[in-house]
């Protein structure tokens, strides 16, 4: 069997490893934009091949698949999905585990995803507004925040999935700090407008959503379009630095287990979350008439207003979340891929080990906002020592050059994974490995020692308990999902009704 993968991050290294483990002993072929050393060696070892190419050009990717004569392709990252790589492969008769362009819209356009959710009445929604320019955004933010109170506490995002960048959360709860926050909102809207200029495939530029708080978690699923199978829950940590401080990253580390669920999410909440993801997949299939076959993931949060709530959707595995689940997957990964492609997922039992897993990423200083600084540092890793600590090691944004040297490529350089009986133990195992990864020129690497620590885990549990009390109160009262204001001289104000009428009006205009 020949299988081809696309992409070059740690997630793809983990996918390649899952393929390599298969009882089918497939030859692994790979197309990537940088030479990830881990994937490169797996290709060599299994008798496959590795090539460098742009992964967002469907023609190029499909040509490689034809040339190599692979049985099917699995796409790792989101951008090839957005550009229609799976579509082109299928057009040429090559099966592909990966969301087709039209269904991948649920990830590409955060605005479209929300519209779909409201249109189909799927639970776990947030109020939102989209804007084509920063001027529009702050006119509305400034002028209407008295009548639409949710506009005071918002997340400002690029309307398109843009490599996990550009999200700012501004909570304007302290009236005495209002000016500071308002100014920052306007400046960030400007920044977003500029940033979105590089994306021409979407009309909406800026997305403003109501700010929510609560514990976040990622629910990754396999789907063949008819059946959805949820994987163990994972929690990613988006803040760059210790103490949950700093810029949003792709994820600095993630935890799962020790059972199928996370310690701070109930079984019911898991089921509800799965139902939400399922409904959304059904909705996008219905809307586009296309089948969704591949990986889908809900980046969720438990919120006061809605209970389990979608923050964003992924049309692929999360990174680092892929590592947590693939490392404890008991079922043969190739069998799962085949079941997805044959539409027979419901017949397959997908099983995972009941273990805790922790992943931590190491990134060169400069990531994520000043990536030039993080690039082109010579890397040295003692993989043997890491294995001796009982951990697994995945290459990420690392480029193997012709002469065998490995250079950092600007993003998360490596990810280290540990499997143990509890999360804290796994976390400690990884911390022991940190000295074994170095940049030879002495440039600093950073990582988060606090991920998986008792302190951080207790904090998550505490937040979850508080937010659960609030949404259950709403559920008991029958007001889950309701948002009502009363404004002096205006009276009751229902932002949900307002949003719905706006949405149906703009639909009429289409």
């Amino acid at each position: 069997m020949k299988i081809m993968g696309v992409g070059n991050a740690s997630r793809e290294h983990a996918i390649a490893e899952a393929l390599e483990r298969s009882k089918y002993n497939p030859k692994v072929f790979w197309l990537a934009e940088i030479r990830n050393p881990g994937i490169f060696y797996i290709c060599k070892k299994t008798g496959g091949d590795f090539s460098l190419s742009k992964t967002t050009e469907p023609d190029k990717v499909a040509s490689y698949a034809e040339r190599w004569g692979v049985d099917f392709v699995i796409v790792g990252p989101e951008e090839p999905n957005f550009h229609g790589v799976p579509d082109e492969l299928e057009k040429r008769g090559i099966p592909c585990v990966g969301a087709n362009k039209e269904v991948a819209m649920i990830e590409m356009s955060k605005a479209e995803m929300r519209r779909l959710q409201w249109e189909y009445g799927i639970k776990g929604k947030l109020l939102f507004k989209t804007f084509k320019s920063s001027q529009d955004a702050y006119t509305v933010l400034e002028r209407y925040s008295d009548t639409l109170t949710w506009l005071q506490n918002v997340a400002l995002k690029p309307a398109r999935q843009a490599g996990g960048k550009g999200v700012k959360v501004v909570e304007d709860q302290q009236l005495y700090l209002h000016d500071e926050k308002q100014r920052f909102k306007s400046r960030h809207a400007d920044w977003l407008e500029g940033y979105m200029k590089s994306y021409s495939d979407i009309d909406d530029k800026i997305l403003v959503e109501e700010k929510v708080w609560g514990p976040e978690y990622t629910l990754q699923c396999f789907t063949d379009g008819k059946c959805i199978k949820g994987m163990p829950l994972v929690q990613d940590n988006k803040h760059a630095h210790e103490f949950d401080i700093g810029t949003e990253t792709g994820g600095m580390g993630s935890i799962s287990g020790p059972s199928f669920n996370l310690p701070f999410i109930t079984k019911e909440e898991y089921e509800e979350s799965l139902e939400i993801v399922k409904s959304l997949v059904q909705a996008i299939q219905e809307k586009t008439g296309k089948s969704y076959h591949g990986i889908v993931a809900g980046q969720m949060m438990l919120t006061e207003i809605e209970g389990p709530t979608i923050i964003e959707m992924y049309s692929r595995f999360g990174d680092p979340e892929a590592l947590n689940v693939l490392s404890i997957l008991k079922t043969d990964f190739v069998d799962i891929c085949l079941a997805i492609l044959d539409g027979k997922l419901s017949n397959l039992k997908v099983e995972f080990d009941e273990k805790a897993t922790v992943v931590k990423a190491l990134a060169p200083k400069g990531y994520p906002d000043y990536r030039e600084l993080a690039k082109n540092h010579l890397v040295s890793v003692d993989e043997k020592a890491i294995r001796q600590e009982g951990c697994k090691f995945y290459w990420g944004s690392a480029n193997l050059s012709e002469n065998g040297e490995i250079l950092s490529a600007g993003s998360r350089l490596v990810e280290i994974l540990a499997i143990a009986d509890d999360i804290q133990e796994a976390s400690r195992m990884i911390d022991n490995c940190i000295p074994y990864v170095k940049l030879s020129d002495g440039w600093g690497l950073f990582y988060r020692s606090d991920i998986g620590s008792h302190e951080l885990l207790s904090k998550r549990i505490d937040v979850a308990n508080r937010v659960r009390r609030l949404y259950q109160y709403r559920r008991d009262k029958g007001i889950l999902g309701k948002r009502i204001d009363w404004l002096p001289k205006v009276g009751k104000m229902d932002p949900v009704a307002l949003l719905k009428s706006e949405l149906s009006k703009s639909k009429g205009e289409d």
Partner: protein
Amino acid sequence: MAGIFGFYAFGEGRENWDSKNFIYYGLSSLQGRGQEAASFAVYNHEVKSLKWIFGDGLVEDVFERIKRDDVKGFLGIGQVSTEKGDYVIKVEEPIQLALVGDGKPALHENRQVSFQIFAEMLSKEIDEKKDPIDAAKNLIKEVKGGYSFIALTKDQKMICGRDIHGIKPLEVGAIGFDIGAIASESSALDVIGAEHSGYIRPGEVVTLDPLSIERRSFSNKTAYCSFEYVYLARPDSYLNSIPVGKVREMIGKRLAEENPVKADVIIGVPDTAIPFSMAYSEHSDIPVRLGFTRTGRHVRSAIKPSQFERIVGVQLKLNPIKTSVDGKEIILIDDSVVRGNTLRNTVYNIKRKGAKKVHVRVGSPPLIARCPFGTEVPQEDELIGRALSNDEIAEIIGADTFAYLSIEGLIESVGLPKSSLCLGCFTGKYPEGSL
């Protein structure tokens, strides 16, 4: 003593933040830790340098004097202090830096001088070591005392740390994806809308720079200041992950258990003893009543400088409500007793308004020794708890009975082993190697 605060913005667009008002509200919430001087320093990216602002008085007084737009910066640190003239430390050479500190490094008798020396050492050490985290680590290893500090260099580095025992607190929080905030107490983080995310460990250094946050810790000792939990910190704060409000409830419960007495009404002396009195009531089935109304601004009487001011402070602070005390047997709960005169005054006031009996209970053990770590406990010969027995004190202040919380009661209320606390002002014994 002092309250300290730091504000650090991260990521692209960080220069859009102005730290000044965050510092203002952060320091305002720490006002109880020092009301005699307020000061701050910010890093201004336009002039690529630090700017200092300082003055005597309350935070609002000092901030009123500055023209708001003069001082702008997306990084900043600030301090309130119990001593006039005790401002953010300035060091120009070899590395320009500003430093705020709580407690006292054991470098000089005087707190300010001590921190001045400390800041100069830090500047030199950074200049030699280049890496500020190593520099600060070496310094903490070397310099004894009980202190926490936040320094800000001209190179946009913020360096925070605690002495090896962690005597003085330092808490950490975050706002969104942008701001890291450091403060003596977590309540300052709440007030600026930050999420409280943890605390700096004893002997730990945390550095914040535009590209990373680093932590380095080498101490395995712990001796948190127990007086923080009894008196200094706000009840809405968490210190070292221990909720102060909860400790105060435990103390109230212990008081009810250790020295029970029959009475009609419980009254707490505002503000610190209010939670003691409520918990005492809950565990004794004696009702708690509002005993006093305050006039004017909140004044913390135990750390006011002069005797006269203290009495004025207490008289203004505490006008008894006659109907709460008239014809009743009262349990009066206070947080601490230093010299006894304010308590004497209070007992006198409520007896004059008709209280039949007054049983005084104190939510801390007797203060018998000085604090070498900057908390203004008076000279040892001025401490009534060191000089006199409970019965003698009762006689002098005009109370019918008088009792302190036991040391064991305090330790159990905090919920940490004795060896993890500094109990110096109650025992005269200070953490090993701290002096």
